């Protein structure tokens, strides 16, 4: 039974696309069939972050409008066989994304894949609503910063009211993914602490992704951070979050830089 997951946030620039790519790759590495779907019509970027930008022929809107078959629009990842991407269109026509069309494509994706991960556009309008509409699970990506937390609160309200699950009397499973977290600044009282954000948003925590240079490096290279530097703190945090999505009970920690052999030999002497 396929699971549909939406990665959403309300606010832009908090790490939805980065997280979609990293989690998609981590889940696919376990051998499951995963598709990542870019819902940001007009501003497609998931293809770029995944390094597939030069291989886009057809897109989500082409499939919705019947100009291409789903199998023609899906791009198979070159590194992981079980990972595919369905790119968004660059059209400026906002009405190209129809509710019926999205429902049809989502149904077809459910039949083909184990995980359908929808990368939502920022905002609370049509695109964001359609990205979350068919979801069973939602990942709310939040930065420890006031405007991001406020927008996440809005999005959580929408997840509980305007989705297919909610309208049918059910509940979407919501998960908080705290990104760009800096433990040192939080300890100094310069940044909202994990407990503060959890208390305010009160949804279960899926993982904490530490602020890291590796994330920009990964997008520069066009590779999910879980593939470009799998031992880096953000990659390990994403890999653990992916395992929690599959139901594993893992203690939540903030991964830190692993020390090299030399550093370990001279531990505490620096």
């Amino acid at each position: 039974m396929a699971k549909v997951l939406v990665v959403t946030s309300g606010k832009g620039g908090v790490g939805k696309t980065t997280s979609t790519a990293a989690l998609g790759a981590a889940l696919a590495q376990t051998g499951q069939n995963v598709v990542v779907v870019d819902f940001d019509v007009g501003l497609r970027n998931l293809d770029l972050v995944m390094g597939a930008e030069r291989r886009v022929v057809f897109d989500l809107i082409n499939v919705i409008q019947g100009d291409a078959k789903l199998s023609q629009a899906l791009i198979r990842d070159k590194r992981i066989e079980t990972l595919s991407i369905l790119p968004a269109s660059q059209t400026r026509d906002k009405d190209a994304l129809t509710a019926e069309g999205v429902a049809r494509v989502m149904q077809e994706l459910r039949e083909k894949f184990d995980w359908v991960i929808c990368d939502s556009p920022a905002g609370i309008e049509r695109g964001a609503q359609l990205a979350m509409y068919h979801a069973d699970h939602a990942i709310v990506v939040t930065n420890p910063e006031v405007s991001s937390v406020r927008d996440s609160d809005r999005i959580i309200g929408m997840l509980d009211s305007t989705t297919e699950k909610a309208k049918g009397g059910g509940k979407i499973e919501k998960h908080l993914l705290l990104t760009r977290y800096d433990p040192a600044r939080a300890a100094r009282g310069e940044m909202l602490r994990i407990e503060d954000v959890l208390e305010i948003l009160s949804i279960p925590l899926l993982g904490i992704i530490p602020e890291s240079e590796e994330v920009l490096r990964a997008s520069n290279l066009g590779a999910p951070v879980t593939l470009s530097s799998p031992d880096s703190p953000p990659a390990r945090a994403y890999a653990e979050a992916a395992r929690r999505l599959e139901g594993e009970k893992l203690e939540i920690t903030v991964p830190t830089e692993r020390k090299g052999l030399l550093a370990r030999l001279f531990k505490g002497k620096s």
Partner: protein
Amino acid sequence: MSLFGSLFGRGTKTSAPVARDRLQILLAHERTGEGNESDLLSKLQAEIIEVIKRHIPVEQEKVQVKLDRGNSVSMLEIDIEVPQIRTPGRR
């Protein structure tokens, strides 16, 4: 932080607790006021001005409304510039 500040404790207060408190107050209001229909304060404001208008001609731009939402108490301050009122019956 200056040397003086670091010698004698924190020179400036940390900002994260301020962020947390501001968010808690804001979201408590935003969650109840979904869609703004149930926002008591804006209803009050509209009705108070309506009552006053029934008796005195009030120009819209002479009305100043200030709102301060607090944790336990909120303040609604309505300032209306009232034109000279002539006593009825005498012309």
